[in-house]
């Protein structure tokens, strides 16, 4: 079974920072269609602050998730501060004692991230939020664990599931967040949170694959 070293995982965090920085304008533009257009800007600010404070430090993958989560929660605020902050610190918690991270471990980490999130938001699949990306990704990983699939294949499948989940938000009417007040008018537009969530999971997957 393939694994990656927790200590090599710093690169994964930097890949996540990189994807947010590259997609700053794209995320803000989608947000502008039904939100207030600042998602990319705020995400970029949070992830870049993490990069500034930690880029020259050595840290484990699980530690990096904790630092990133705390940076988002304590320094950025908005909606994404608590949302991503909770996901990343939850992931970190579940991975903190690991030297090597397997597919099963990674799936458990992501699940624990969602567990924390579910304590602060009530959104379910179909409510046009990042949950629409996160849940299919977790389900895909779980499924791969059950099938004893290879880590790389599982990550690629997770990416596909996450992308499909994010794309599905186009058909939904927003029930949470700023777009929820638009009702029918939110249909036809992607949920920005679901897109940033896909981008982050995708960056994580691609980067982990290089470490396997």
């Amino acid at each position, binding site marked *: 079974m393939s694994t990656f070293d927790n200590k090599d995982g710093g690169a994964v965090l930097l890949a996540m920072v990189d994807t947010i920085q590259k997609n700053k304008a794209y995320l803000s533009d989608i947000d502008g269609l039904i939100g207030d*257009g600042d998602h990319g800007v705020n995400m970029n600010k949070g992830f870049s602050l993490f990069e500034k404070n930690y880029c020259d430090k050595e840290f484990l993958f699980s530690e990096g998730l904790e630092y990133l989560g705390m940076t988002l929660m304590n320094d*950025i605020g908005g909606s994404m501060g608590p949302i991503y902050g909770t996901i990343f610190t939850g992931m970190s918690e579940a991975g903190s004692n690991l030297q090597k991270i397997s597919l099963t471990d990674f799936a458990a980490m992501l699940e624990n991230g969602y567990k924390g999130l579910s304590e602060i938001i009530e959104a379910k699949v179909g409510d046009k939020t990042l949950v629409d990306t996160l849940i299919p990704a977790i389900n895909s990983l779980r499924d791969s664990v059950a099938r004893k699939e290879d880590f790389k294949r599982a990550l690629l499948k997770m990416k596909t599931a996450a992308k499909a989940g994010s794309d599905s938000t186009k058909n939904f009417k927003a029930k949470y967040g*700023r777009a929820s007040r638009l009702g029918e008018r939110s249909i036809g537009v992607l949920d920005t949170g679901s897109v940033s969530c896909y981008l982050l999971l995708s960056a994580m997957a691609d980067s982990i694959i290089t470490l396997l």
Partner: protein
Amino acid sequence: MQRIMNDPDNIVDEMLAGFIKAHDNIVESTANSRVVKAKNILPDKVGVITGGGSGHKPAFIGYVGKNMCDAAAVGEIFSSPTAAAFLDAAKAVDQGKGVACLYGNYSGDNMNVKMALKMAKKQGITIKTVVANDDVASAPKGQEEKRRGVAGEILMWKVGAAKAAQGASLDEVIAAAQKAIDATKSIGIGLSPCTLPTVGHSNFDIKHGTMEVGIGHHGEPGMKVCPLGTAKEIAKKMVDIVLSDYPFKKDDEVVILVSGLGATPVMELYVLYNEIEKLIGHAGLKVHKAYVGNYFTSLEMMGATFTMMKLDKELKELIDVPAYSMGLKQE
């Protein structure tokens, strides 16, 4: 973008620095750079805090002062303050009698306040909340809990803070602020969009010659787009929407707040108020007090909000309590 700024990423911090320098007789900075606190807070009273995203000047820090909020947590532009900022605001003003956190109904603020409450509990600080939901355009009647908080928040702060200044208990302050917001309804109209300095272009459009009725404070789309009418027609639309949202009877006394959204000349706000006042009079209501000006803005959006609070004896007494903050000064 025609903006007076340095690095857009630092605009909030630089605004705060300027604000604290300019109003150092009213406010002071705290250990948390995103928390602004009133000077000379009365001893032995319930703390009153608020918080919200930036870009709404004078809200939120402009309503920190004497007999107004004791502290405000400051977020990025149009983005909730952190949970840590809400918590630090509460800690900065807690005198052992508890803290009333009076804020607006937005998902980010709700989440961060929820987390701050959790942390406060662990540290032995009691925070209770009232969530403003005065924007009638943001959800239909019967779903008031989904409505956004807009300029009506100012009247909620005014009432809650006055109650606290009178030495009321935390539960009494909360009850007064809740009563205030329940009696308060708002509607906004937008004439032109606004641009986040960090984004550089506006992310929504209001076509020339049209207005968006029910627009939100961050440009959230409204109920409908219609041709831009005269001040009289605009006033009629706004007053009709607000009056149809709650029961009132002849001779009820009301407070009216007409706020610009940032780029509409103040002169036009008085033109609008003149029309609104006539319609309110025709409806049989009496204006006890009026506030007209840029009270709660939305960067450089053009447009205005109309807010009305129906008074009872307690609300009237509390709204009349003198106050001194940057955004609201009354004798």
